[in-house]
């Protein structure tokens, strides 16, 4: 099924929705549609119910963290050097704002086609992490959206039971974010070397650390 056709079909059915095609440069040839958050539920319902689409099977729901990053690109700039216009390279740095992205992989059990990759992006990674939940459309998103909430911190509005799934209820951070730092609160298994040993030594203070390194380093 052609992605263009799907896009135009959905746009015809959901007035005002902003769909964007996201190209995938890899050989997998799985291109995706990015929907805006407001119309996502309506888009999802169309995808599920439209007679020739029937994406009734939401297989995979996951998040991707895109922290804000600096992109430096070389731009040719025309400059006036000594009154003569010259082309010169200039490195221009732009900050691409970070966001959290949620990806849905849709298949159709009835028509046996797929995957259709549906994506949504949050506004930023701090306060604007709200996205509409698609659990009312596909029940299979229930646990997986909980997992994305747990590990990435995307808040799904309209999810019936949004709690942490894998981490315990008192946990505060979101471990799958790229900038997540391990808390220094658990017992390190003593190992012979590497990062873990260093942190174990830090964690236990010098005395314990020394003993450890003597016991295992030699």
């Amino acid at each position, binding site marked *: 099924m052609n992605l263009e056709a799907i896009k135009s079909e959905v746009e015809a059915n959901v007035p005002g929705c902003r769909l964007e095609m996201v190209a995938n440069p890899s*050989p997998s040839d799985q291109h995706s549609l990015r929907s805006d958050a407001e119309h996502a539920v309506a888009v999802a319902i169309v995808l599920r119910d439209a007679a020739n689409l029937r994406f009734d099977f939401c297989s995979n729901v996951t998040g991707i963290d895109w922290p804000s990053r600096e992109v430096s690109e070389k731009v040719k700039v025309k400059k006036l050097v000594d009154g003569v216009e010259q082309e010169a390279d200039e490195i221009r740095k732009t900050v691409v704002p970070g966001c959290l992205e949620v990806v849905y992989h849709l298949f159709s059990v009835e028509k046996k086609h797929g995957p259709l*990759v549906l994506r949504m992006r949050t506004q930023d990674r701090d306060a604007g992490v709200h996205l509409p939940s698609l659990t009312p459309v*596909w*029940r299979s998103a*229930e646990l997986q959206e909980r997992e994305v909430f747990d590990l990435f911190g995307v808040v799904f509005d309209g999810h019936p*039971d949004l709690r942490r799934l894998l981490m315990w209820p008192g946990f505060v951070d979101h471990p799958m974010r790229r900038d997540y730092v391990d808390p220094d609160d658990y017992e390190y298994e003593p190992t012979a070397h590497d990062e873990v040993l260093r942190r174990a030594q830090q964690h236990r203070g010098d005395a314990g650390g020394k003993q450890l390194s003597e016991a295992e380093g030699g």
Partner: protein
Amino acid sequence: MSTAIVPTAHFDLEPMSEPGKEQLLELAMGPQHPSTHGVFRMNVVLYGEQVVRLKPVFGYLHRNHEKIAESETYLGSMPYTDRLDYMCSITNNWAYALAVEKLAGIEVPERAEYLRVITGELTRLQNHACLIGFLMQDMGSSGTPLMYAFREREKILDLFESLTGARMMCNYMRFGGCRADLPAGWLDQARKVVADFPRFLDEYEQLLVSNEILMDRTQEVGVLSRELAVSAGISGPMARASGVDYDIRKVDHYSIYDRFTFRVPLGSHGDVYDRFMVRLLEMRESVSILEQAMRDIPAGPIVDPRMKVRGFRPKPGEAYGRIESPKGELGFYLVSDGSPNPYRYRVRPPSLINLTVLEDLCVGRNVGDIVAILGSIDIVLGEVDR
């Protein structure tokens, strides 16, 4: 137009102890419990023995496999996939290899595809046989069917050991092929195991299929409707027991499954008995696939010669690859940013997603039914919690 079935809101065990609800018994089944198949917990509210509410609690085995994989090379995650569903490491390897091959556009030589099918279907045989054993164990049959299953599984694990070097943590697939070629005499040994397997299945059927207690315990118990199964993303034998005709081997035409003739058994009731029977029948189909694959296996290279072991860097992009693992649809979603490590590595765990409907299946049933239903879903906590 189908409508999604929305789950009930969550409950805490404590606030249930309010006046007017003294009749209810709140019970935490697990994390240490003989039939939760690992460290899994179900918070159950009982009226007498009847289940009023049930909420699963996950995460006791969580090790953030996905985060670990982000700091490993692509190859470095391969042995970790063994530990997802530790009953069937080979299909896990396969799904991951398939996803990476999609991501990087790698071709797999023909012989390697046959090796994958043979080992993958052997994995399915041993997983289904053991699952039925576990299910019977959960229903209190003193482990007899389980021991028969283990007896047969042992032979399959011996095959795995002589091929891959390990019985359970096989780490067998590589991007663009398999790691090791068949040792001398392996095929003959495998043919013998596969030829003996139907005899074991006959024995199993004799022991179980017509047993009145088993039928009484499983028929019309934990009925999963077709609509809910599709909506909740249920896959694998559990979905097929509910009549969903969806076998990824047939739908995606991945690997070389198109070359084999096999049938997909479908249930019509969607209860525990159907799930049990669908697995039993699927084993017979797997035996037939194995016979065909071992008859047709060609000679040739087992890995794409252009693949290097070190320094594998796929181009930026993303791919979702999935296979029909014994538990259901096992998918890997990979995002590459051109570095040697995946930018994002996601496992689509069939065990976890099949648990979505646990409460729907259990409410109104007895405590004894919970374990039978849970057993029939076929979960492995290594995969549920990752």
